[in-house]
């Protein structure tokens, strides 16, 4: 019996597997069990248009993923309230990529081949976007995305980046930062200290890549004295020694290549050793946390592409995103319920795909792509002209915002500032 | 006098302060059953552990045939043809009875063109475990585990087998069977080192005795002589006076 059962179980397991194979041939063929699909044949115009994408709903990137989820949901609601797309309702098929590029790639494959989505929208996070873009490329799908930073790496002609910093983003972002501080004229910083998270996005802006100079190089080119260059790992937990090194170097401008919660932790450590930054810049901090850092964060600058203020509120949808996102975020219980750059980018990405479809008048990926490269797109970031000569990147829309009196306000360039506010 | 198959020269094994073996010089002759006896704690099991390479001696040398083995890895010792059983059976608990025996047949000296499965079955039949071949070793009774220990050691096709209290815990009928079994092992031409407390069995089986007490050898020779030796009697029964 004993022997019998072992043989039986081995055979059984194999028989089971082959049966599955046979079964999936018969049963899940024809009409798929998932009855909600069927948009791909574009037959009935009542069928919703399905837009597929993933976001980091769990894992290390999930904090920002959550913002994009809320913003996206609000956009889809807004769109459907305003007649949908091509007269059809829009349905967002959102999957979790767990902040993991492999999951992201698999999920985009699933969206295309199983969920039969009509359109794609990119995930959050450079790694996930890069992995997903490969899938989009293999399927020749239009791929608008909001936040990939490694501009040099992308050459897919149907990807539409909304992180509007130009193809030389590491240079343009850097130049913008120092241009902003140059406004201070005599009081402009002469020395700069770099403290950079090893995350690819922050690392790229700070250190560049082969032919693309980063902030450190730009600073040197501009004659600033780089007095400190420190990299720290993702998930760094001890800020004291880094703070000490900053204090010892005593830079005029503290340039922090920060992500998420890095900035407030660093600022706390700095204030504990009694060093106050004269000028401080933070690349991609979680804005709520930076504001929560209190007095030490006063005067901190950061990059932005959208803030809930003029002129952005006058841009296409600028008012809507601010109001709707804030309402939704408050309801969800986010501690910082202000629509800023991430929410704006999310909205702009949706505006891009919407404009492409409406402009092309169809769901044909080639036509959408053609429309997008040939026309200006109105977004909450302003007017965007995707330039196929530059891998669809375009001019630099990056602005600098600063915490003044406990609130973020745009201080550079002048055409983005509300009422002549200047950097201090 | 037949040739020695195993010879120890002044083997010593210490554990911390304890001298478990103290300069023991012992030899086993080809084809004999040597009884290794002594009261509890006298160092018999330590001796077997040292001989099998399970423990490394603290001093002295061990030769098996012409090969010095006290410096070899245990699996090399096994390959030379030295096998053992364990006092408390240590079967490979997640393997079947047959697979336990196949381990011996698959390695070292026993590794031949013959299928270890076939030879393994033969050894199981030999010790009387043929019907339990497919049972999990864990499910065996103590007696069967002892039999398995034997079969497993035999499956290595040893030239010398060391049996560590194979009779302990068995009932009289089982003991009788085991004694017959050990005789038939000798008849296969395998030398046996037999560690046992059951003196009736020792007397009945052994060609020679080697007596240890507190890690030291106190007597050696044919059973009748050795067992009437006063030092041995004292060792077992305690001396009447200090």
């Amino acid at each position, binding site marked *: 019996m004993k022997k019998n059962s072992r043989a039986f179980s081995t055979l059984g397991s194999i028989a089971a597997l082959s049966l599955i194979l046979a079964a999936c041939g018969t049963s899940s063929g024809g009409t798929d069990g998932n009855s909600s699909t069927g948009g791909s044949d574009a037959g009935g115009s009542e069928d919703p248009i399905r837009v597929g994408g993933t976001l980091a709903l769990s894992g290390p990137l999930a904090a920002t993923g959550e913002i994009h989820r809320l913003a996206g949901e609000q956009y889809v609601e807004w769109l459907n309230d305003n007649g949908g797309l091509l007269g059809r309702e829009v349905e967002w098929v959102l999957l979790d990529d767990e902040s993991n590029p492999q999951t992201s790639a698999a999920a985009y494959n699933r969206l295309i081949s199983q969920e039969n989505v009509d359109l794609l929208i990119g995930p959050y996070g450079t790694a996930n976007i890069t992995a997903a873009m490969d899938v989009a490329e293999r399927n020749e799908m239009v791929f608008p995305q909001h936040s990939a930073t490694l501009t040099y790496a992308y050459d897919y002609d149907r990807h539409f980046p909304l992180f509007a910093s130009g193809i030389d983003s590491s240079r343009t972002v850097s130049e913008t930062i120092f241009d902003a501080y140059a406004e201070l004229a005599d009081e402009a910083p002469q020395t700069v200290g770099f403290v950079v998270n090893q995350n690819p996005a922050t690392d790229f802006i700070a250190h560049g890549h082969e032919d693309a100079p980063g902030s450190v190089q730009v600073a040197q080119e501009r004659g600033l004295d780089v007095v400190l260059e420190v990299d720290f790992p993702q998930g760094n937990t001890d800020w004291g020694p880094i703070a000490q090194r900053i204090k010892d170097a005593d830079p005029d401008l503290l340039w922090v290549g920060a992500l998420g919660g890095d900035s407030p932790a660093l600022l706390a450590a700095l204030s504990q050793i009694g060093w106050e930054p004269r000028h401080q810049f933070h690349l991609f901090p979680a804005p709520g946390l930076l504001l929560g850092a209190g007095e030490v964060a006063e005067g901190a600058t950061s990059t932005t592409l959208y803030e809930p203020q003029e002129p952005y509120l006058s841009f296409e949808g600028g008012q809507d995103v601010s109001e709707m996102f804030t309402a939704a975020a408050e309801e969800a219980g986010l501690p910082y319920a202000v629509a800023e750059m991430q929410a704006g980018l999310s909205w702009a990405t949706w505006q891009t795909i919407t404009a492409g479809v409406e402009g092309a008048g169809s769901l044909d990926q080639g036509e959408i792509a053609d429309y997008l490269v040939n026309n200006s797109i109105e977004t909450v970031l302003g007017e965007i002209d995707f330039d196929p000569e530059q891998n669809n990147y375009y001019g630099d829309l990056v602005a600098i915002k600063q915490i003044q009196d406990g609130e973020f306000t745009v201080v550079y360039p002048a055409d983005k500032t509300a009422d002549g506010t200047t950097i201090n | 006098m037949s040739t020695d198959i195993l010879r120890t020269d002044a083997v010593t094994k210490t554990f911390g302060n304890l001298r478990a073996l103290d300069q023991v010089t012992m030899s086993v002759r080809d084809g004999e059953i040597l009884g290794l006896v002594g009261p509890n704690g006298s160092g018999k099991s330590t001796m077997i552990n040292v001989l099998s390479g399970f423990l490394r001696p603290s001093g002295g040398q061990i030769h098996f045939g012409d090969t010095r083995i006290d410096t070899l890895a245990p699996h090399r010792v096994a390959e030379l043809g030295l096998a053992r059983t364990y006092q408390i059976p240590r079967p490979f608990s997640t393997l079947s009875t047959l697979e336990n025996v196949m381990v011996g047949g698959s390695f070292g000296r026993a590794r031949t063109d013959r299928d270890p499965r076939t030879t393994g079955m033969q050894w199981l039949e030999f010790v009387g475990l043929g019907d339990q071949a497919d049972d999990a070793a864990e499910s065996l009774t103590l007696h069967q585990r002892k039999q398995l220990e034997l079969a497993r050691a035999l499956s290595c096709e040893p030239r010398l087998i060391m049996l560590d*209290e194979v009779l302990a815990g068995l009932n009289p009928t089982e003991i009788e069977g085991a004694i017959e079994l050990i005789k038939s092992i000798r008849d296969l031409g395998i030398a046996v080192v037999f560690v046992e407390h059951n*003196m009736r069995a020792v007397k009945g089986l052994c060609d020679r005795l080697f007596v240890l007490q507190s890690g030291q050898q106190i007597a050696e020779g044919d059973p009748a002589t050795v067992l009437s030796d006063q030092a041995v009697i004292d060792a077992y*029964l305690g001396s009447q006076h200090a």
Partner: protein
Amino acid sequence: MLEVTDLSVYYGEARALEDISITMDQGEVVAVLGANGAGKSTLVNTMAGIIPARSGQVLLDGAPLQRLASHKVVGEGIALVPEGRMLFNQLTVAQNLKLGAYSLDDRSEIGALQQTVYDLFPILHDRRDQKAGTLSGGQQQMVAIGRALMARPRYLLMDEPSLGLAPIIVDDMFDLIVRVHEMGIGVLVVEQNVARTLEICDRGYVLEQGTLALSGTREELLGSSAVREAYLAM
């Protein structure tokens, strides 16, 4: 009165003890003799509550002990000096002793018991902060006995106390058993040193293959060839 009635113990399917009945008084030294594997250790371990019985009972003054969780038996006044000492080798001598009194609560009494043990074994006092695992065999046996005495036992079960001891120390060991007995503690001693054991015991039992082969007074056993037979087959 410590009694064992119709006790049977099995390891899985293997029988270790069958229908054993013995009794002893607090004033006695009782020997349990027999060859290796006869079931002596099983008997004392069952009495100490370490091994569960399949049937039969251990009774202390008529009250069954077998229903108690094993960690409560010691509180009833039965302490074990196990075979191979089984000290907590990584604890110091003093700590081993204190653990013996774990079932007691009265600190001053524990102190007094400890003093008694140190009086009995002055060497242990000198070595009190040494790890038990580093002591010599004889000293370890002292700790084992001391530890058992710390439980303030009425009955002490000693499993092979002379095992692995140098001959000179063996004599001390037997003297010690007598002294323990003189403290008013009943001693059940399992021994292979038959000669010395029979010198000090009042009565004895001989086990063979898990059954009771013989019982009797010291004199009766001394005259019996069964004992000699059991050990040396002669």
